[in-house]
């Protein structure tokens, strides 16, 4: 396992060009139900506040503010790009799949058909100390999704 497999170019790119970053800059679409979740990893200080807007059973918008390592920031960016436009059920199932891959210690391969750019985080699964970095925004999204649809 080389460092380059952990830090794939797509991750480095997303860690700098952050899709969906900036809660204050993006108003939730009118008429959409929203949920917001704040997640903190006290061990490393990674922090994400994510807001998710749902209308007509579709995820309209995923916006977030965060501070943390490149893995955590890139993961939030990829999630935001990937999740927008999905149905509620689809996003739930993608989150479940992502979690399964990340917690598999490298045993479960990522399927780009399902995960899109998020498949690039497959390498993180082999670095036990970094799994939470990749998961933090996805945990926030799951929580926000449940709020928006409850």
């Amino acid at each position: 396992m080389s460092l380059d497999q952990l830090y794939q170019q797509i991750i480095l790119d997303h860690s700098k060009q952050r899709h969906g970053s900036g809660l204050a800059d993006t108003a939730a679409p009118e008429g959409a139900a929203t949920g917001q979740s704040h997640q903190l990893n006290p061990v490393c200080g990674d922090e994400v506040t994510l807001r998710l807007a749902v209308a007509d059973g579709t995820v309209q918008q995923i916006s977030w503010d965060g501070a943390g390592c490149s893995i955590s920031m890139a993961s939030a960016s990829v999630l935001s790009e990937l999740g927008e436009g999905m149905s509620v059920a689809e996003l739930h199932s993608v989150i479940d799949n992502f979690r399964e891959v990340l917690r598999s210690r490298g045993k479960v391969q990522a399927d780009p058909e399902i995960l899109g750019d998020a498949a690039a985080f497959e390498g993180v699964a082999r670095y036990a100390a970094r799994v939470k970095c990749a998961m933090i925004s996805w945990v926030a999204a799951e929580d926000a999704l449940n709020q928006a649809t409850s």
Partner: protein
Amino acid sequence: MTAVSTPASLQRSVHAMDNAEVLRIRNDFPVLDQLVNGKPLIYLDSGATSQNPLSVIEAEQEYYEQRNAAVHRGAHHLAVEATEVFEDARQTVADFVGAQYEETVWTSNATEGLNLISYALSNAALWAAQGRGASALKDLVIGPGDEIVVTEMEHHANLIPWQELAFRTGATLKYIPVSDDGTLMLDAAADIVGERTKLLAFTHASNVLGTINPVAELVALARRVGALVVLDACQSVPHMAVNVKELDVDFAVFSGHKMLAPTGVGVLYGKQELLDVLPPFLTGGSMITTVTMERAEYLPAPQRFEAGTQRISQAVALATAVNYLSETGIDRIHAWETTLGQRLVKGLESIDGIRVVGPASGSERIGLAAFDVAGVHAHDVGQFLDDRGIAVRVGHHCAQPLHRRLGLTATTRASTYLYNTTDDVDAFLDAVSGVRAYFQA
């Protein structure tokens, strides 16, 4: 008796340490002889926990192989032997920091030592209110209107126990701020430590900034108003000569695992007249004189603060670690680490985009350096270095308020010990100089 390996240091004279000696020392540390990610391990995280020489590992094993028994009870041979080595260990550690035997209390670690003082002090208020204990206890009572003073550079272990003591007693917590150069604002301190101050707690050396605080000046501020002084000596006792009597502090704490010993053992030093009147923190077996169904009378220190079966093998191993440090020479170690620390800071300062926190090179510092890399999170820096076999610590190093003061959430910290060479520092600096390019920052 099992042969215990002789530290390489035994054969040495008093010349200054050099890389050749350090490489001999390194042979005493089995864990350092390994590859990490295919590269020789360079361990620069001794500020978090240090490694154990073979003599320390063997001392713990030898204790279990030859004399394991509960101390201070039982008349059988093993119990007597165990008690003897346990108490000899106490004397060895007491001598190392200039304390008396009776003033040296075993704890699990420095954190427990600080909590012990905090709880003993709030118990003092409860006892005094009910007329229990010695009359001298009244002078130690902390209550509403009183103030407890810490500093902005404290490890959470020397902050939270005082926040909680303030909460339990109704006292107010204040702090001495840190200036931009990573030293304490002593002018402000003179105002902050005032007539209401009952206790002043501060670290001897900062685990993040590397600053060595002026103990004498701070103690003088406390003495002026009759406040107790608590010294966190976690980052000083393992690395430099510390004499608690010369420093004239009332309490001092340090951890074994940061000074070549196993985890699970630490030391609380307290002036005897204080320890003998303070109520205990933990109560139970081994710390009592007479017990009835209604109440108990307690032994004087140190047993007063050592309830329950103690960490005997760890205490014995800590004494062995102290011997290793003494035989190598704590002043020689300090001089060597000062060299390493200056090399670290100077090297980091010369790398583009690196901001070292704490005093600049040339100023007095301990042998560690924490820094920020522009555009790269500390966690990523740590991962990059680990890939090259270099172990450092990343995060807030249990000092969130200090990082907030510095305008950072996390830093990367390299910390040295007697088993690090200048080559280790140079390899680390070489790796750090490649971090920003790798992350395209």
